[in-house]
């Protein structure tokens, strides 16, 4: 660790002490070139990944999936079935890896924990008044503690977009810090809800804010607003985690969520990760996909590669 990095790190850790310092820092971040970011993201989507590389990419993508169900209609039976699928996505093929995590509402955590106990699949739960985040802080923290107590080892929190957009960065920062504390040993993923942040500059600022406050992951979306994860937004976030590690030495993960439905999309994201932040992030500990229907498409493509024939949705579970 060089002297500059160390001093930069201590400087950054001071930022959370004052609203002015935070604002000065976040607004001092270089602006995002919108056209450039979109073009770069589009360009990275044109790579052709075939045969063995594709097989590896598919297996990696399966390991990175946060198999998610966040419906009002979720029942204990449904989430148990989902957890069973997470352990063994393709029952016909034992060589198929398990997914990264299962992601459910806090009330469903105990049912999933029962199934996942003893396995390497993580249990993520959304908390902090997901998806709007519009609730008093005590309620958000109680929500978080309850999820952790019930067995979740990853917490997906939503930031207070109302406060962020109004420029009350300190409030957002403090909420993340408090939630991180409430998490204890559990990993904290911070959902920026980029579809509501309006600009890439805001995405960059929110990413930095989340990382400064101690988030272990930055996540794009809740999946509950029309605009979910996009390539350019994820690119901006990847650049932020790259720059953050360069400045502080701490690595933060990225999780695009919502709208990623096909293997082709997933592979585009993996290419972007490799080209933007490098292979250090090509691991389920540092990059995840928040998805549900993506898994079936990955499994169908995997079956095509192993058997040579195209499979159909009739042969995989509905979830």
């Amino acid at each position, binding site marked *: 660790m060089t002297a500059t990095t160390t001093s930069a790190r201590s400087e950054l850790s001071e930022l959370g002490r004052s609203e002015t310092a935070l604002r000065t820092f976040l607004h001092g971040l270089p602006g995002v070139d919108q056209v450039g970011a979109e073009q770069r993201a589009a360009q990275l989507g044109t790579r052709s990944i075939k045969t063995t590389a594709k097989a590896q990419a598919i297996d990696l993508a399966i390991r990175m999936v946060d198999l998610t169900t966040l419906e009002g209609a979720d029942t204990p039976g449904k989430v148990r079935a989902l957890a069973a699928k997470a352990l063994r996505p393709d029952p016909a093929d034992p060589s198929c890896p398990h997914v990264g995590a299962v992601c459910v509402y806090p009330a469903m955590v105990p049912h999933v924990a029962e199934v996942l106990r003893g396995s390497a699949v993580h249990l993520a739960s959304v908390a902090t008044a997901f998806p709007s985040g519009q609730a008093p802080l005590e309620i958000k923290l109680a929500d978080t503690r309850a999820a952790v107590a019930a067995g979740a080892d990853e917490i997906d929190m939503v930031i207070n977009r109302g406060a962020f957009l109004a420029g009350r960065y300190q409030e957002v920062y403090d909420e993340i810090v408090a939630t991180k504390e409430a998490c204890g040993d559990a990993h904290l993923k911070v959902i920026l809800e980029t579809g509501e942040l309006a600009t890439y500059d805001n995405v960059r600022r929110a990413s930095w804010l989340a990382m400064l406050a101690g988030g272990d992951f930055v996540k794009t979306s809740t999946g509950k607003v029309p605009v979910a994860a996009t390539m350019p937004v994820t690119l901006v976030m990847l650049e932020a985690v790259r720059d953050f590690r360069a400045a502080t030495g701490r690595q933060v993960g990225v999780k695009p969520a919502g709208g990623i439905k096909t293997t082709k999309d997933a592979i585009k994201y993996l290419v972007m990760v490799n080209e933007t932040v490098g292979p250090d992030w090509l691991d389920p500990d540092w990059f995840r996909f928040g998805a549900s229907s993506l898994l079936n498409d990955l499994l169908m493509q995997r079956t095509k590669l192993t058997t*040579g*024939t*195209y*499979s*159909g*949705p*009739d*042969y995989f579970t509905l979830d």
Partner: protein
Amino acid sequence: MSERVAVRKTYKLFIGGKFPRSESGRSYLVQSSNVSLASRKDARDAVVAARAAVKGWAGATAYNRGQILYRAAEMLEGRREQFVALGIPGDEVDAAVDRWVWYAGWADKIAQVYGGANPVAGPYFNLSAPEPTGVVAVVAPERPALLGLVSVIAPAIVSGNTVVVAASPTEPLAAVTLAEVLATSDLPGGVVNILTGAITETAPTLASHLDVNAIDLTGVTDATLATDLEVKAAENLKRVLRPAPGDHDWFAGPGLARMTTLLETKTVWHPKGV
């Protein structure tokens, strides 16, 4: 004033109601035109489009399907000259229109003729109703290019199936022009998908595809290929229509077998009141 430059036509595939080029970018020269040479990925995309269309098309009322098929016949009639210009004899175009209308009429009759009440020994109404099987892959006969094509597409879709058709490789222009007819007939996108190119490339993909429910091998002339395709189709128990004999008369009455082979029967037991 300078002389007008003719607009040259590109013959493309018909997938999901759109006219894309082959994803492989390939084309081949046939009938003095460049025609897309479909790859196995195009076949896969066509199956995805066909599968997506099943729910809406099979769920439409039989009357509605019949009306849409009549509309297609009207459009076909209106483009008679265009087909004749492609070298298709006028009487074949007429026969194709008639064939289309004939099948359109069956839309709301097939369930009456092939469904019905079964006498059972118990206090039940027992009713059988024919239902479409789903996605049907079709290898169209090489010729007659238009009448043959109409005679394999119409019986499959009239009952609510959706099709992926491998068109005649030697005379594909009629198929692409028929796609233009269908695209302007209120037929929902994806109900008919047409691939031009080599049968040896597209048919095996379709035959082995697990999301295809039936395959019509009418246009397969090579006996070894036909056997191979049938073996592939057995993997998920596809219904199979065997190749037509070489001397098949396409102008003769088609019978009902093409429709009924692509149907499944649903039987319902309903308790009778006392």
